[in-house]
């Protein structure tokens, strides 16, 4: 009994790592431009495809290289590609609509996401079938009693913690971070004091999309099977996590991501018949939050401005 609990806890932490990485992207974008980028989940699945492709290429070209280096290089390439994808998507589908009705960027980013998804489906070899992520991390791990902590799980957990610390320093201690915070506090005032707003918006999109790329790569390593249409659900979960945590707050996004993962995993495990409708529970949590605390756990209270 206790062992299953521990197992579920481990599963939910693994899922929470992914959700919070996606949610951080949502919260960064919302902070800087007041938009919700509905194709963020498609950045995530794009990165899974990119990572898998490059891993396969490397494995075929250079057999016998230490797997750590391979993973690092493939992850790096996936992050850079996804980051640039994020920048392009911002230029095409968000920048033209900065001053228009907020319905418009919702629709344009949704369609951008659909385009990415369909391109993956049509142009990736056998893209409409589930793909298998090259299994490169050695099996095994650390046994604590009966409880097994797999190597891939340790890698994912440590890496996520590193990324969280990195994000903290990026936002709190560097010039890039302070400029991003300045823009998110007041877009026009930031451009008045000489911050190149467009450039920092691009940088933010690069960072956010590459965080989604890390999550996508982890998805590949952990679940090993992926499909072109997994992005939409991941995106909606990540968005829900950032809303639950409080849109605009990076720390809130992390909390929200883990909360969503806990609800989903434990509802699936402990409620009879729950595994088929596990998503229903997390969406109900989101609905409750939206109704009773729309600003989220850590968000500032939303005040209507005229």
């Amino acid at each position, binding site marked *: 009994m206790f062992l299953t609990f521990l197992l579920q806890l481990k599963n939910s932490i693994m899922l929470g790592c992914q959700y919070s990485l996606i949610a951080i992207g949502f919260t960064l974008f919302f902070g800087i431009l007041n938009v919700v980028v509905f194709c963020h989940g498609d950045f995530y699945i794009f990165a899974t495809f990119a990572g898998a492709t490059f891993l396969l290429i490397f494995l075929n070209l250079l057999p016998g290289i230490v797997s750590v280096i391979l993973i690092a290089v493939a992850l790096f390439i996936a992050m850079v590609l996804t980051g640039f994808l994020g920048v392009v998507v911002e230029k095409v589908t968000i920048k033209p609509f900065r001053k228009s009705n*907020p319905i418009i960027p919702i629709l344009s980013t949704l369609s951008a996401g*659909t385009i990415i998804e369909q391109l993956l489906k049509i142009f990736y070899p056998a893209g409409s079938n589930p793909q298998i992520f090259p299994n490169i991390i050695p099996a095994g791990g650390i046994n604590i009693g009966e409880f097994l902590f797999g190597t891939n799980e340790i890698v994912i957990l440590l890496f996520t913690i590193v990324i969280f610390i990195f994000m903290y320093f990026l936002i709190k201690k560097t010039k890039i971070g302070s400029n991003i915070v300045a823009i998110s506090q007041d877009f026009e005032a930031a451009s008045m004091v000489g911050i190149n707003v467009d450039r920092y918006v691009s940088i933010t999109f690069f960072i956010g999309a590459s965080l989604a790329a890390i999550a996508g790569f982890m998805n590949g390593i952990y679940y090993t099977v992926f499909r072109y249409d997994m992005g939409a659900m991941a995106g909606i979960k990540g968005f829900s996590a950032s809303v639950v945590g409080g849109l605009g707050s990076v720390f809130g996004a992390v909390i929200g991501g883990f909360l969503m993962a806990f609800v989903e995993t434990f509802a699936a495990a402990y409620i009879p018949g729950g595994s088929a*409708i596990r998503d*229903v529970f997390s969406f109900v949590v989101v609905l409750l939050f939206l109704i009773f605390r729309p600003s989220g756990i850590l968000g500032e209270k939303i005040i209507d401005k005229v």
Partner: protein
Amino acid sequence: MKKGKLLLIGVFFELLLLALIVIFLKIDNFLQSILIFAVAVGIWFLLARKTRMVENLGMAMEEKRKELLLIALLMVIILPFFFLNNIYIIHILILALIYAIAAVGLDFQMGSTGMVNFAQGTMLGIGAYTSALLCTTFGVSFWIGLVGAIIVSGIFGVILGLPTLKTKEYHLSLVTIAFAYVGYLLILNMKWTGGPDGIAGIPKPKLFGFSLSRSIDIGGISIPGKMLYFYLVLLALVLLIIVASRLKNSWLGLTWNAVRDDEISAKCYGIRLMPYKLLSFVFGSVFAGIAGVLYAHLVGFISTESMAFSVDLLLVAMVILGGMDNIAGVIVGAILLVIIPEKFRSIQDFRILLYAVTLILMLVFRPQGLIPKKVRVYRNISGNR
């Protein structure tokens, strides 16, 4: 300009449109259909360039509104007679009209009140399932199923509308997305809804003893049952268009527009947001419910496939393509988005991709839609301007 000439211009354009649609649907050849499509796009661009033409057409639409609408209705009535030998095309036309009903309903939220709603396809599914369950398990007739579906979808409209009182914009879109997914997953996983197998054997409606599934002979011409169903759906669409335009031209529509343009100033003028936002959701959901019933009884089978998230997106795309807050535009958008992809079946794989590209192109180059909304004309009580 003389009034007779205005009427002539209007009729000419309507005939042109009818001819294009008929030819487009008649053709089987892929290249030829692309050609016709290009001709239609060309005509539209020419119209957009020649401002005088547009002005005349606009004037014709305004001065001779009633006559032109009547002629348009007549044309739609004779439309299925061109396809007596091809039931499949009539089926597509019916689908176009059904989606038009749901899209007009969605426009209450998106166009009039300015609230994004990604759950309209789910509402369509709820209506369809209600009627299907009533008809298959209790054996009631189509009409009772319709009434039941209207009530149930109206109730769900309230349920969906309630969280909107606290949320707006992105949060609201998340509410509707969450609602759509919850509805989809629950119906997919419950036993009494048939689960992934759906519900089969939904009966065709009966009217004055005629079953709309069998063909009838009138003066030597055999009229297929599908065609009778077409007229049933057309009747529903016309009635609902009248309802929708009455609503939009009333104080209720004006209030919705005030809420859309500025919620805070609407509040300051003493408008209570709650009842109006709720009403917008309820009306929209009832329209979707009716569309769902018509869909279920047309196909005879319903599964969660017809309320997937892509249907929600498709309906949103119809409203954007046609023009928000304009009934004629929304209907044109719905008809285009159903008919054109059906003809391009040979590029089936690219269909959704094309939807998305079209949507982005529309948003960038023509955000007001194909047929933009006209400025509201105020009339005094006696009906004069």
